[in-house]
């Protein structure tokens, strides 16, 4: 037994574990500073956010160590069971009393548990298990449908809470699918659709007008016109540049994508006018920088950017923040979704840049680990982990620095929140455990 433990510890990936511990520790210190109260100065005061966070970190590490002692095969075999249990929890939690208008939490004593945080690793386990089953080919429609349902069932329950931010994270599995062989065109198509859609909303929201030889167009109609022109140009490009026998197929693709693009612009315009509420429209206007809103919907963003900007190149120093902490509270949610503000304010550009570098290094290390697996299960699970963390990182930071509308989603390892820290830790430790036996298992 002792030998075995030594064996496992010796094979654990030290860079990943190290980066994990650095992020968790930095996160704890930031929560400590952001929600510090002179009444409870000790970091282990369970009355305050930092004490609870510390407790959750300790619990996470204990569970993490326990995971390291498990057999890899056991983890793999429990995938569906874990998935089933967590999905059941997602169903049950809908009947719990609402906290801040959402049925997302189980309340046990002073602690709350948020099952949607566990859904992330549970769904990852299930997808990894399913896709690594021999004979499953991602190119087959049946596979896609089953994966879709594996994601959609917990996703549906999460939407009922409602927690759209977490649901958004479930879209990150598209990266996993892509890595496993999903046609790149789908990803590319989605990418273009997002670009076209965002631009359409931008033109719509900006209500810009373009004067053209005395004719005044709304810019979004000009944009539509540009898409039509592009389609026509590509049509002629195909006529002259592509070999005759390939032309027919390319024409169809060109026509279909042009039509889809136009439809997308139309539906964006329609959605903007008819589906969006004023508060959504305001959020877009604030995000695109069309409106500097000090109060109202732009408040969070304005305060957050002020806090970050006030950090300057080198920051105000640890515990010296004047906007994003509990004493001043200029930044809302400064110890959860907007925790990055506290960090950026206290450590300045040097600190915030270091942090995004650390995150990127962490993500790339996970991909490197995933890629060195012989086990398909581990590789897919690794990609799930990387994609989910990437989405969290991307959406959270983009929101905080004003590049995306305000979406409630935590910054992994930093934001206060026990379930999140536990959920992410479980993912990392499962990956570490699976990785440590990569040479022993051939699967």
């Amino acid at each position, binding site marked *: 037994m002792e030998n075995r433990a030594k064996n496992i510890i010796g094979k654990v990936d030290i860079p990943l574990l190290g980066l994990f511990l650095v992020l968790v520790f930095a996160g704890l210190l930031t929560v400590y500073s952001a929600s510090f109260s002179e009444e409870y100065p000790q970091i282990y005061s369970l009355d305050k956010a930092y004490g609870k966070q510390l407790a959750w970190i300790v619990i996470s590490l204990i569970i993490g160590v326990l995971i390291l002692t498990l057999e890899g095969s056991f983890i793999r075999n429990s995938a569906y069971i874990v998935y089933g249990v967590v999905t059941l929890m997602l169903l049950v939690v809908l009947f719990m009393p609402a906290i801040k208008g959402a049925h997302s939490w189980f309340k046990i004593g002073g602690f709350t548990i948020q099952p949607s945080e566990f859904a992330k690793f549970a769904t990852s386990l299930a997808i990894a298990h399913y896709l690594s089953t021999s004979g499953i080919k991602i190119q087959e429609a049946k596979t896609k449908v089953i994966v879709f349902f594996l994601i959609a069932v917990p996703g549906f329950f999460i939407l009922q809470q409602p927690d759209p931010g977490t649901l958004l994270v479930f879209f990150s599995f598209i990266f996993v699918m892509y890595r496993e062989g999903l046609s790149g065109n789908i990803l590319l198509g989605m990418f273009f659709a997002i670009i076209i859609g965002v631009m359409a909303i931008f033109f719509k929201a900006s209500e810009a007008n373009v004067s053209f030889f005395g004719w005044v167009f709304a810019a979004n109609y000009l944009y539509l016109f540009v898409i039509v022109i592009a389609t026509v140009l590509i049509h002629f490009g195909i006529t002259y540049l592509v070999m005759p026998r390939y032309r027919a197929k390319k024409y169809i693709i060109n026509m279909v994508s042009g039509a889809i693009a136009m439809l997308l612009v139309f539906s964006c315009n329609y959605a903007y006018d008819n589906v969006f509420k004023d508060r959504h429209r305001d959020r877009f206007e604030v995000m695109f920088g069309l409106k500097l809103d000090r109060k109202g919907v732009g408040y969070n963003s304005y305060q957050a950017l002020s806090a970050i900007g006030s950090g300057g190149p080198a920051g105000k120093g640890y515990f010296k923040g004047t906007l994003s902490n509990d004493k001043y509270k200029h930044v809302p949610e400064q110890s959860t979704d907007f925790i990055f503000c506290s960090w950026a304010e206290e450590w300045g550009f040097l600190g915030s*840049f270091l942090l995004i570098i650390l995150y990127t290094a962490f993500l*790339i290390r996970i991909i490197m680990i995933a890629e060195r697996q012989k086990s398909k299960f581990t590789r897919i699970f690794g990609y799930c982990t990387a994609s989910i963390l990437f989405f969290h990182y991307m959406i959270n930071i983009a929101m905080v620095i004003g590049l995306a509308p305000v979406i409630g989603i935590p910054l992994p390892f930093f934001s206060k929140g026990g379930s999140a820290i536990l959920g992410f830790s479980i993912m990392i430790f499962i990956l570490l455990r699976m990785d440590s036996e990569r040479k022993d298992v051939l699967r």
Partner: protein
Amino acid sequence: MDSFQHRRWIIILTMLFVTVVFGVRLLYVQVLNNDWKNRAEQITHHKVTIHPARGLLYDRNGELLVAVNQVYDILVTPKDLKGIDTVEFCSLFKISKTEFLQKIEHASTGYNVSYKASTFIESMSKEEYSRVVPYLKSFNGFDSKRRTNRGYPNGVAAHVLGYVRKISAEQYSKDQKVGEKYYNQNDYVGVTGLEKVYEKELRGERGSAFFLRDYAGNDKTNLEENYAISGNNLYTSIDLKLQSYGERLMKNKLGSIVAIEPSTGEILSLISAPSFDPNKLSGREFSENYKELLNNDTLKPIINRPIYNANYRPGSIFKLVQALIAMQEGVITENTGFVCNKALINCHNHEPPSNVQIAIKHSCNPYFYHVYKRLIQRGEEKSIFKDSRIGIEKWNASVKSFGLGIKLNTDIPGVKPGRIPDANYYDNEFPSKTNPYGKHRWAFSTIYSNSIGEGEIGVSPLQMANLAAIIANRGYYYTPHLVKKIGKDGSKRPEYLKKNYTMAAAKYFEPVVSAMEMVVENGTAMGAQIDSIRVCGKTGTVQNKTFNDHSVFIAFAPRENPKIAIAVYVEYGTWGGIWAAKIASLMIEKYLVKELSEKGKKKEKEVLDAIILDKHSDFK
């Protein structure tokens, strides 16, 4: 081995791309661009202005002239107005609905913006405030602020003290553009009188404190504090008792009293009648009261008469100056006599003016006709025109050395120079600018009325009082001033410590002083006699075309080591001796003896009973 291995690079590149975008954005927000730093400062920094206490004003004996009252301003933030019951509000604050709407409109326009609080009702007294304060909370958007205000325990010397008012838009923008940029839009400044002249000394130096505030606006951390420096108290030269007494004597009369201590130039009292209670311009009813004082009252009490009207002709009093200059210039001696030739200029019957004293005692017009002729036409040029030019320039310089025709550098705002004509004046300005006499087209015969203080001479009551002080001092004066000390251990302004000598030597003053004593003993101003004091004086009558003449009297007392010099103007008070002399003697007696004699009391009653003009008088 799977064929999609290379896709890891696409995913890694995507991550790196996102991180580069974040890095650039952070570099911009935190390092390259300062906007967000400034916005953060706006959010967190809170500057609190610490207003210094404005200095108080005391009289020469330490009696408080200007004190401080506690008042309350009602503030309105138009943006926050919600569900106001206008009818209830208006009846509580006793204003009309139109007034209410006007004030709200005013509070949201100009440099008042709707999300900032601005004054809605100004300077409510403590009693008024305690009546409305229980209901104030129920009106969203209204708030109150405690402030100190000027209070005048004695209700006198309104013109001397001046008043304090919220800075005008013009003065504020001037201060911002070319001034010292000291004031804020809601600051109070001295507008007239000593409050204006000594504004800098009185206001002190504003302090400020910087706080870091939290989201709710609570000041949490004190970053910096600059203490305010209180304003200096002013110890004025005014004698409160004399001032009050003078104002009482001038009830129902129009005119001025200026009393000066000759040995220092300190103004003991400066009275403009009719006067008003300075408290009227301090409280909530400022605007109404101001309009009333300025426009609706035909007697215009807002005017500070001792300095405002510098176009009074000095009349016979000017003969004193003529005599002094003539003796100094050597055109006459003390014993020069002339014939009282009524053909030259009118006169009354009196003993022959065989010397200066007798001429002054009887105020002989022909005598001073001759004196002035000798001063103007000195025989230095053959042409009487050229000769008169030389003469008038010399004469002008001499007269100006008596503080006449020049702007006295006093600490009363708005003093005027009056007029002592010179060659240029007759060349280019008189009788009118469009049709003047012209160079070498006037001579003594054209301007002889100046000889008896008529003609084109204009002086203010302040200058006349200063003339009395000059004669009392036998030849010099300190510029009249109102402040003895700035601050408890301070001193007066240095310019008030300087003696200004006239061009007439001291020895020429004795015959004039004797003559002035005779004027009071058995001349034209017997009404000014005080049994125990040797009073020297001279009457004057300022002719007035439309109504009764003005009654003027200057005097000083006692003859030796004079303690008080005084000028009294009673407008439309007919002949000089009647009212002006009586009032002057009462002032002197009150100041020097404190208790009035039986004779004085009788005089006092006469004066108090006299209604020369009241506010209903209709005249132009």
